[in-house]
């Protein structure tokens, strides 16, 4: 029942990776947003048009702004609004990095079940991010 130092190793490594990846993505989000609203970076969707667009459903918004679903937004980088989306995508994906970082530790300890769970979770997140699942 007692927790050993070894059994805490994946948890400690996950925490370290989580701390730095979250800090990096939040810093990018803040800087990207500042550059976007200050006009330092141009916007794909003019900011002053947003009040007419943000009350539309997401599908209509995409149609009106000429952005394709999935990763279509990435083709409009480095516009400011898309830089913010890139920072958001990074923030959402931090757990993929953290999971990948702990797999070798679980493998060293012969914990195949947890290696499998981590790999499956990464696959699920990759599938969710791939745009294969869509309502459009």
């Amino acid at each position: 029942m007692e927790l050993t130092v070894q059994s805490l190793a994946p948890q400690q490594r996950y925490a370290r990776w989580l701390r730095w990846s979250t800090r990096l993505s939040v810093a990018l989000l803040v800087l990207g947003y500042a550059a976007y609203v200050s006009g330092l970076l141009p916007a794909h969707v003019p900011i002053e048009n947003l009040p007419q667009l943000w009350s539309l459903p997401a599908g209509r918004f995409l149609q009106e702004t000429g952005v394709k679903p999935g990763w279509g937004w990435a083709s409009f980088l480095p516009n400011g609004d898309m830089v913010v989306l890139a920072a958001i995508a990074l923030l959402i994906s931090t757990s993929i990095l953290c999971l990948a970082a702990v797999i070798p530790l679980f493998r060293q300890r012969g914990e195949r079940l947890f290696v499998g769970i981590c790999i499956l979770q990464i696959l699920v997140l990759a599938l969710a991010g791939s745009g294969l699942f869509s309502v459009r």
Partner: protein
Amino acid sequence: MMATLASLGATAPWWAWPLALFIACFFLGIVAVPAGVGGGVLFVPIIAGFFPFHLDFVRGAGLLVALAGALSAGPRLLEGGLANLRLALPFALVSSISSIGGALLGLSLPTAIVQTALGVLILGILLLMARAKNSEIPRVDAPDVLSQTLQLHGVFRDGSSGREIEWRAHRTPLGLFLFVFIGIIAGMFGLGAGWANVPALNLVMGIPLKVAAGTSSFIISPAAALVYLNEGALLPMIAAPSVIGMMLGARVGGYVLNIVRASVIRRLVMALMLFAGIRALAKGLGVWN
């Protein structure tokens, strides 16, 4: 008040609403920590009820707010032993898969139906908050086979008593089953799932309350947020000020917890949720637009 807000929406400069959103999220962040609720469960009904943004964008931002809060608190919880990675991973996997289904369902249903269901859900969560009697350290006589296989046990040091407390899980298959539904609801409505994760881990699986609350943040799945991103339901002008405001507010909330009684804040939050739940229900039914 609604007419005033609507007229403000039509005439205000573009920056007025994002600024109002930032300020609202800052205050939501302050009260969310002492009240012991995730940001998402407050954010979605309040912002959807009183701001001019479409529910799709509010749900997308709600997931992001819940995720950002969980990610920023995560390292400290893991290092302090108040969150358990082994416990979180199997449940995060199950709720990830189901939250994708929930997100797709939520984005394909008519807005009025989702809005009405959101009102019912918020009022239901309120009832759960008022009635559920979480157990500080539940008694677990015998762990089940799955819990033993996954080694769902551990030790944590209780800061208030200074004691080291051993814990283990039971009823793991039932817990996994519950997390399928929790994931669907979280993905569908853009809520974080702490309101459901904590009772499921604590009351059903026998995890001590502090470990359940700490681990709960790791079961908030980013999978649904990725679906919202793909579907164009994450609008930078809404998502960024929400996340930044909520994260700054949560830092202040940590200090507020030391000077204001948590029960007072909790009552305030429950009153806010009651109002927002009624508003969501009425908006969905078309009786208060």
